[in-house]
């Protein structure tokens, strides 16, 4: 539908950032901490959404949990409490425990595709992203910089014009540029890998989004 969310790309990027040795020569080598099966990634985020014709960016911040295969919980704390859960089956949004949005992936064509990319990337299948994007590496040393551009720029289902990723051990920040000039900038902080299962509350949220 009208939803042109960069979120899905973001997940792809987060996941890609954790691919260890990139198997194909087409893909640039990126030195990040490997994410093993059964691990979860936790961290904080700060998001700035720059919208055309708006005075300033819409700022939000909070925490996130990524559990490969199950989904992503995006817990916004400021400016108000808001939970967004994404799974391969779709997306659910809750405000104060009340569901405000429910989107099966059938309704958002791009989402399932990105989930396929996410899964592929997490298991070291770089092909998933390089199928749809031209990836160029900039920068040297421990710190890396990637630019992702859609191969099919005319694909109407592709809601972005480009994506800039930057990081070293982890993905540190992302800039998602959309065709109409809007762009989202997300900074990731205090990330850590855990070899633990999601908490019961997180599992509940993930299950909820898994049953769309």
């Amino acid at each position: 539908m009208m939803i042109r969310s960069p979120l899905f790309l973001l997940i792809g990027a987060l996941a890609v950032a954790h691919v260890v040795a990139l198997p194909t020569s087409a893909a640039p080598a990126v030195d990040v901490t490997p994410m093993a099966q059964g691990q979860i990634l936790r961290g904080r985020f700060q998001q700035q959404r720059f919208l055309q014709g708006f005075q300033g960016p819409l700022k939000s911040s909070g925490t996130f949990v990524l559990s490969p295969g199950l989904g992503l919980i995006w817990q916004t704390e400021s400016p108000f409490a808001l939970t967004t859960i994404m799974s391969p089956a779709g997306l659910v949004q809750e405000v104060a425990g009340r569901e405000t949005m429910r989107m099966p992936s059938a309704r958002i064509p791009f989402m399932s595709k990105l989930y396929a990319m996410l899964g592929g990337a997490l298991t070291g299948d770089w092909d998933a992203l390089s199928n749809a994007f031209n990836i160029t590496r900039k920068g040297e040393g421990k710190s890396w910089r990637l630019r992702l551009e859609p191969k099919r720029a005319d694909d109407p289902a592709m809601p972005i014009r480009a994506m800039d990723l930057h990081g070293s051990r982890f993905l540190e920040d992302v800039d998602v540029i959309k065709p109409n000039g809007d762009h989202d900038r997300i900074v990731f902080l205090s990330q850590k890998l855990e070899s633990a299962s999601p908490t019961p509350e997180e599992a509940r949220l993930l299950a909820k989004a898994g049953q769309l």
Partner: protein
Amino acid sequence: MTRVLSLVWLALVVLAVVYLTVRIHDGLPLRTDLLALLPREEQDPTLQRANDAVSRALARRLVVLVGHSSAQDARAAAVRLTDDLMATGLMDAVAEGFDGERLKRLGSLYFPYRRGLLAEADRALLAAGQGEEVATKALAQAFGVGGIADGNLLRADPFLLLPSFLAALPLPLSRLRLEDGALTVTDGSMTWVLVLTSLRGEPFALDVQERLLAAFKSSSIALEAAHPGLQIKRLGAVFFAEAGSRTATSEASMLATASLAGTILLIVVVFRRVRPLLLNLLVVGVGIGTALAGSLIVFGELHVAALLFGTSLIGVSVDYGLYYTCSAFDPAGGTPRERLRRVMPGIVLGLLTTLLGYGALALAPFPGLRQIAVFSIIGLLAAFATVALWLPALDAVGQARHVDGLLSAARRMFAFWETPNWRRTRLLLLIAAVAIGIAGLLRFQADNDVRRMQALSEELLRDQDDIRRLIGTTAATQFLLVEAPADEAALRREETVSPILARLRAEGVLSGAQMPAAFVPSAERQRENQTLVGTQLEPLLARQRATLGMEGDAVEASVTSIDPLTLSEALASNAVPFLRELVLAPGMHVVALQGLTAPESVRAAFDGVAGVRLVDPTADFSALLDKYQRRALELTGLSALLMLGALALRYGWKGAAWVMLPSAIAISVAPMALVLAGQVFTFFHAMAVVLLLSITSDYAIFCAESSTDRRSVTLVAVWMAALTTLLSFGLLALSRVPAVHYFGSTMLIGILLAFCTAPLASRGRRKLNVPPDSDLLAKQERTSTRVA
């Protein structure tokens, strides 16, 4: 005189042959659709039109799933298949999914009218005074991830009402999702890609079927070779129709061949000469050829079913020829003309009664039945003219004496029905017949469920089930018809019944429904929505804008319409592809249903709702067959009475009753015996009964019209006629199509009964006051003149 008439008849036959050759050269216009066999429902043209429109739209649709373990292969094969199908020029592509282009069009259609368009959930919140909730929801999407973050949209629609409306649109095909522009569903390791196309032309036209199926087959063979492991599942009326007409035509030609071969064998064995065979073939050939030409002139086209039944005419039209050629066994001998004179009364009377029977058939308002009736009437008249005008001239003088065995068998048959020492057996048989009749009546059950009368291809049914399972939902053939004086009133009606549909969906009776009002709310509803937005959200606007950080007064006076969106504008925009199918005419709308499990619950739910009703074409067709089955039985009764009256003029009432007895036994015992054997009585049994009356009365009349010294010869002719009829109609009992099988088995038993009981009719002769051979000659001359 006879010579002139013969030449006139020859000229007519030559003309018919020339006409037929030209038509066949142009390609015979054969139809195969069931719809063409349907009677026009005079009493409800509206319903008929809706039915036609919806059934045709459904029948045109082709749903193909292309599956492969590799998504890429599946997608490539689907693209190729679509290209191949489009290359035939027979198909239009149908875009059921909402790709970017479609979304853009949808967005620009709705955008100016957004203040009047509310999702049902938002509308409920606003109506309950919970505008805050709507505002929070929009903020959550603006600030959260995964929401609508388009700046332009947010500026124009700070409460994000339009995306909410769009997201709530009831779109069909729920399990499919768009991947790389292809609607896709994954099942286990398989990726299935949907190819949705719609036939431009008539799905039941034979040439369309052939061309499309040929293209489909060659394309799938090539694709399966290119992508090993590829699976293709298909669903569409055209596939079923093609499989059906393939079965029908192969069966028709198989049965026709068997019938012809059997008839030829029978004649050659009995006559031990070739000439009678050639004479009878001539009669049949002229009959069928003229019938075909005549029907094409009358109707312009023919239905395959009419042709199937029509070709079985071989068995009937050969009766007259056989009756004449069997006169060669007459011990009295005579020239061909003398022999013709002797059999003429029987043939004329038989023809007249048979025409009465077929005439009654033409009264049934089924176009297909009319075709069969006209085909048969022309064929019989032609066969009669051929026998009366040509056969004596072509016949060699000669008497056959080799059938003494048959003749003595015939004499024994007469003895069985007449000598007193068989009286007890005769009574027992009569009691048995009555018992079968009564027992059958007690178990009598009529059911015309069309789904059980067609032989649907197993493979296609499997594909249909698989497709239903994979894409989760399929369009039901049933639909709701909404009628109102104008579009606005119809839209309002839909809005009033929308809660009923929601309840039915919650009860699991259906999985989805699309009504025009869901895509274009009524003007009244749009105004209500505008008011709700004005009273509930307007007060929150300043705060919402501040929270979003929007510049103070940059209010877009851009594209906002105060007037509501109209249905005609939506239709003209072509943004909602299937809207056109839902709006049949101003004020006449269709609510399409998906995944309907209990049509009766839906019918009940809308019982008493003005202007809304469930249309169930299949059930309606079955109900129609019920009605016409009764009509056919009434017609049989009517023609029996007419025949009785006509025969009474000749034999007196008691004599006429004797002549009608064999037919009466055949038409009452045959269907009842089948009912006892477990068959459910259908329209097709009734049709067989109609025909049985006409055919069996011929046999009885031949027997009744025969003098005592020649009646064994006559009975041999009747047997020959009955056997040839069994070879044609009786063979239909072997058909795999249940409807044809019912018809054939009724004919089989009925003809056998008439075969055995025909001698009873000669009892009617005792009441005949007119010496058989005197005034009939003059009468025959007159009749043949009239007929020619």
